[in-house]
């Protein structure tokens, strides 16, 4: 019969964290820029006759991808304004695709530097610790000081 003094379980119970859902100004700015970008992309696509060009080359596929991403961008705008958790990874996804498309276009001699600059700034901003924290994407272990 063993008579040990403890069950030997060392589960850490970090205090329940409350996420500050106050929307930072930068998030509002990103939502606004995304709104303008999405609306102009969808609007331009619609005005130019969406199905006239057919699906002949990569540029057309890329254009269609951009419109699809613009559509998701509108969902991101709503999510960012409401500060819901899923909006953060979705925003990063949209910005990443925009950057990938931007790099592809740059490689083929059609750069869009303004979109690239805005996407780079937005990704670094969204990945900053405070903004991650606002969306609840910081590991609770961060409370332990890092040496």
């Amino acid at each position: 019969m063993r008579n040990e003094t403890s069950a030997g379980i060392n589960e850490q119970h970090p205090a329940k964290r409350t996420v500050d859902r106050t929307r930072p100004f930068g998030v509002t700015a990103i939502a606004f820029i995304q709104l303008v970008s999405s609306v102009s992309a969808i609007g331009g696509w619609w005005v130019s006759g969406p199905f006239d060009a057919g699906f002949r080359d990569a540029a057309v596929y890329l254009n269609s991808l951009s419109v699809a991403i613009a559509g998701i961008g509108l969902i991101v705008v709503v999510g960012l304004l409401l500060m819901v958790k899923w909006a953060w990874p979705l925003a990063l996804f949209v910005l990443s695709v925009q950057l990938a498309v931007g790099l592809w276009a740059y490689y083929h001699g059609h750069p869009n530097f303004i979109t690239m600059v805005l996407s780079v700034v937005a990704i670094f901003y969204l990945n900053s610790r405070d903004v991650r924290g606002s969306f609840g994407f910081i590991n609770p272990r961060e409370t332990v000081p890092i040496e």
Partner: protein
Amino acid sequence: MSDLDLLRKYEPIVRYTHGELFFPCPVDGYVNACELHLGTADGEESRLLGSRGEVTLESLGTLRPPSQNHQHFLRFVDRPLDGRELARWLIREDRPVFNARGRLARVGLLIRTMDSLFELASLLRGRVPGGTVAAAERRYREIRRTDSSYPYYGRVLRRSGYIVLHYHLFYTMNDWRTSFHGVNDHEADWEQIFIYLEDCEDEPRPLWVAGSVHEFSGQDLRRRWDDPVLLRRGDHPIVFAAAGSHANYLQPGEYLARYEVGILKPVSRFVDQVRRLWTEILRQGDPTKIGDRIAGLLRFPYVDYARGDGLSVGPGEEIEWTPVVLSPEDGWAENYQGLWGLSTSDPFEGESAPAGPKFNRDGTIRKTWSDPIGWTGLHKVATPGESRGMLQTRLGEVLEELRITEFDIAELESQLPQLGLEVEALQRSEVFHSILDERQRALTAAESSLDALVAKRSELVQTAEAIQLHIERIDDGDYGDPTSHIRQFHTPLSREEIQESRIVETWAAVSVGLLLLGFALILVFFPQIWITAAGGMVIAFFAIDAALRRHLTDLLVASSVLLALVSLGVLVYEFFFETVVTVVTLLSLLVIIDNFREIRGR
């Protein structure tokens, strides 16, 4: 109480993992079963000094340290088992079977790829062939036939108010790599357990327990006696020896250990600087995750299985200890600086046998031997018996300093109004400008001194209150959180981490191989578009890996940051002149704003 009585009173209970092959073994039987060699430091040449049956503990103790480029070493296994012998050894009925989930299922694809490269290096190193473990186990059983005792070699030190009970356990082989998918194998293994008692006039009181564990050092190694995590049976702490490596953990479970290759250390330091810049100055990402990931990239994952579901040795257990008290007359421990097993001259040092309980491989004295108090960071920790007196002394000093400070404050408070009036009088006179400047400076200095003294008084008052409160708590037997000294907890993997799904485990086992195979197939069948195809395949592999391991968000963040960094590079390349102008302009503006603030603040 004699040293032996102390060692016996608190001797640990060591629980092993089912599947363990090597248990604490008497050193005399081991030494007698070894050959003694003198070899060159590069391992190229060696000379037999003593055959099996000739070498004794006494002869080891009388050996003089050889010249600088040579080293004595014992050799336990002369010939690894060949294929047929090994097969027979593997299928024998009494061999304990060990089952475990693969370690690779617990880490990501990138780390697994790095790990595979390291494994290849290990295979190429081949320092200790696989059949060696089987041969060593056979020899070990032969020793057991003549001596079935389970000894520990203990010593007792009395220093800095502590009594240190230092238990050494000797194993004939560390078979972590061969038997338990670990880092290394080597002949001979010395492990240690420490129990720190308060050196009281009456009955000594147990305070701390520590064991030798990979990766950890200093105060993280020790647990307080009243820590609920520490299992005890009466005065006997329970220690869980890891399978093969024999590291001593204080909680049962499976531990993810990370092994850093020596040659990667400079890279590791550089990457750590980048990590600091990224997380602390640029405040990017989740610092804990980034730290873990970088640690994972440069340090390979291994699992130390300290389940405690096997044999248990100690008081009241299936097998009891045979205590041996070490004394300065034991030359084999005190003088023999050579290795206790085969010297492989392994550049990674993991596959060479260790030196004895007192020495490192290079002949220097182990810190655990010379300074067991400092080894666990106990020099700064007063024993409870000393604490009260020390706190009372310090409180007296603080109160005296407070009294002097208050006197100085009172004096300055009386001087300042006079000085102020004097300055005021000089200001209203048009004659004494030089005196006014000097008095003005004196007034400013006196004011600053008063501010500093008032701040000091607050600090002293708060310190005195804290010390007083601490004394009261100690009087009540409250020594605070038993884990407050621990900076990095070594806790076993959670049940969820261990019970990864079968699909994840299968994927972990085949993914790196499939990736390499995919590269080969792409080069054969799609040579024109190999970059695009290989890139697509890598992305697909990472996505599958992240999805299976439920780390899709991490992959998304890493991908987006990578794309952002590449784009930033493109932007800097395209707009280098504009970037330089912008940065210089921003810096100029910052300087102007800063200076302007200073002027306004004056």
